[in-house]
């Protein structure tokens, strides 16, 4: 069975997230006083035609490090689920 990877790429905390800041200000302006912060990242779905979970995981890590994120300024996380 193939795997579906749900990948999230986010800016590292040390990097100023200007889009997130703009959204945070907009939310505060809308009157949501309890909103403390907002951060914007990317969500990517990749379907991987592998039967072994460990192999799908390896590929996922590799593509995240190689292309989908830039390790200098971004972190990534993913969830893998088998598709029936």
């Amino acid at each position: 069975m193939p795997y579906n990877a749900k990948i999230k790429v986010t800016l590292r905390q040390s990097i100023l997230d200007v889009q997130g800041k703009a959204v945070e200000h907009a939310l505060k302006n809308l009157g949501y006083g309890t909103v403390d912060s907002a951060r914007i990242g990317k969500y990517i779905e990749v379907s991987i035609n592998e039967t072994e979970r460990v192999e799908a995981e390896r590929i996922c890590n590799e593509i995240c490090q190689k292309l989908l994120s830039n390790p200098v300024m971004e972190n990534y996380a993913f969830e893998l689920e088998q598709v029936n």
Partner: protein
Amino acid sequence: MGAITAGIVVFPGSNCDHDTEHAVASFRGIRPVMLWHNEHDLQGVDCIILPGGFSYGDYLRSGAIARFSPIMQEVIEFARKGRPVLGICNGFQVLLESGLLEGALSRNRDKKFICSRTTITVSNTSTLFTSRYRQDEVLSIPVAHGDGNYFAPPEVIERLEEHNQIVFRYCDAEGNVVPESNPNGSLHNIAGIINREGNVLGLMPHPERASEKLLGSDDGRRLFESVFDSIAGRQ
């Protein structure tokens, strides 16, 4: 001796390739050669310029997809042999993504695309890209970018400083490197850096847009001149 050739890589979405071609062709004895992103043949060029623009629509991240194009595999090889590679704006982003230079460029501090004249100062004139400039000279060269906010971890910045790899910094008209003269939030006002070996340079400002008086400044011209002189052995 035949003409010196300068390869200009054309990605889908490059938009300063012909401006760069025009600037390069204005030098006597220099022939620009356009190199298509899908090719593997560098056609024996003497140096390579990655021009500005929006390669692959800036999809994913600026320069991220261009870095894996067929021609870039050859450019990386070319650079590793010590041959001169210049990245302008999007070209700088591609060089960072490809690991030929250290660091990254993120969204401008003020969230805006900046298209304006800037002043930069030359901090290192002993490179093959800057030999025709004077130390701390102030240059008027325009920028046009949305992702020009240079970032690198502290240990990388320290290394860049230690080896004099920060070549250009944003400054005011008098040459003072101050926070007010920083258009995009770049760490240490960094506008351009060179690799440790001294053959790969990337910068955000556009020297090809400041290569003749008619454009308002020809301060960028000597960057190309320095490279061509170095190739021709005129030191």
